[in-house]
């Protein structure tokens, strides 16, 4: 690969300055599992690569004061799985990230890269949308917080302007389940692929639920991947779950809403009709797993 520059800044501010100076000719390098492969295939040839893995905020996971989490955008999938508190609170996000590629890819690939690569089929994105995750975007004008579902604007395109980068993901606090009479929460992500491992999703579905002490769903979010030009947040599917105990009728309604919201294309991996149907099936199944994880009567 030909290219003149590599920088490994230690701060976000330095990174923003480098991105601004390069004026579009630089790319942020996190795990590199998409970017370096695309460079080798001649799809992109940035003059400057800015390695962000040496910036502490991008390379760390921490629990925030409110009980939520802050996940650095460059943290690799294997490191997510090693964080016991994160796995306990957000198993759906971790299982989604862990579906990306082989163990070798897991040693490098990050949530920030998965999002900014802009694929409609990115596995971690529907799970992050379901979780209500926001990302912190730093740029020349300071930082802004953007909901994950608003970042990808078209296949391969994001809302990031020149000079901007994703610093971290913020996850809201969860009821921890320690009090049997208090609210509980759970999330899950499922995807359909033709093989048993390592393939691109035909459909991906993430569901996150909060239940009250009686087991009634008080909050829900649903994210779908690979069924539209961008990953989708499906409020109608969530609405079908809220106020119910996720009985069969509620699950069926949520599945129908997910199928209706899907607007996929026909391609070599699946047809429109198949993807719409599978979107409903996976939404129902992911909701049942999230329910079981929340301690409900699945």
């Amino acid at each position: 690969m030909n290219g003149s520059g590599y920088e490994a800044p230690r701060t976000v501010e330095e990174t923003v300055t480098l991105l601004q100076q390069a004026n579009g000719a630089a790319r942020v390098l996190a795990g590199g599992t998409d970017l370096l492969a695309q460079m080798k295939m001649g799809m992109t040839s940035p003059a400057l690569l800015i390695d962000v893995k040496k910036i502490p905020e991008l390379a760390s996971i921490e629990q925030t004061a409110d009980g939520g989490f802050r996940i650095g955008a460059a943290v690799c999938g294997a490191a997510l799985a090693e964080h016991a508190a994160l796995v306990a609170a957000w198993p759906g996000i971790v299982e989604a990230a862990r579906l990306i590629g082989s163990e070798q890819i897991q040693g490098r690939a990050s949530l920030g890269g998965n999002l900014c690569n802009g694929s409609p089929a990115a596995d971690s994105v529907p799970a992050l949308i379901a979780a209500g995750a926001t990302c912190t975007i730093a740029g020349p004008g300071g930082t802004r917080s953007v909901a994950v579902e608003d970042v990808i604007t078209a296949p391969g395109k994001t809302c990031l302007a020149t000079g901007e980068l994703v610093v971290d993901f913020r996850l809201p606090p969860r009821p921890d389940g320690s009090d049997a009479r208090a609210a509980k929460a759970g999330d899950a992500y499922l995807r359909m692929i033709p093989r048993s491992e390592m393939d691109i999703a035909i459909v991906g579905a993430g569901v996150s639920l909060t239940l009250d002490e009686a087991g009634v769903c008080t909050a829900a979010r649903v994210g779908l991947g690979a069924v539209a030009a961008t990953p989708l947040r499906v409020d109608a599917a969530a609405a079908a779950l809220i106020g119910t105990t996720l009985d069969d009728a509620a699950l069926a309604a949520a599945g129908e809403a997910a199928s209706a919201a899907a607007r996929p294309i026909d391609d070599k991996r699946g047809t429109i009709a198949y993807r719409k149907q599978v979107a409903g099936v996976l939404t129902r199944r992911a909701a049942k797993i999230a329910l079981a994880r929340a301690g409900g009567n699945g």
Partner: protein
Amino acid sequence: MARRHVSTRVNGEPVEFLCEPHQTLLDVLRDELQLTGTKEGCGTGDCGACSVMLDGRLICSCLALAAEVEGAEVRTVEGIASGNELHPLQRHFLEEAALQCGICTPGFLVAAKALLDGNPDPTEREVRFALAGNLCRCTGYDKIIRAVLDSAAELRGEA
């Protein structure tokens, strides 16, 4: 184009080299450091032939820049044996004919060692999933999986 100076550790030894800014770790290992045990298969992270450990994590060295390993710890297939004594994984691969052409073998050894270092008693299913990023086009996988399971048993003192 300015070459970059990189100081790192490879298989426990301090190493310095010069590299192009976008040269891969794989190319530097093979062409600058003459560590040709690590193989290039696909070059795009799909086949695992170039597997190495970077700061304790299994990665494809074709999808890492050499410039990134400044101050890091790299471990390659050359670091698996102790002197002239083969690691049990290497011995079992030989004894159980878990290789034919051998191009994929270094990657399998590095990935299998990474698995067993973290999980000394994996199930067959766990071995198959852990090695799903390593492709072999001649042996078929059964002998490789058996060699890894037998190595694990020996390392646990059960064989």
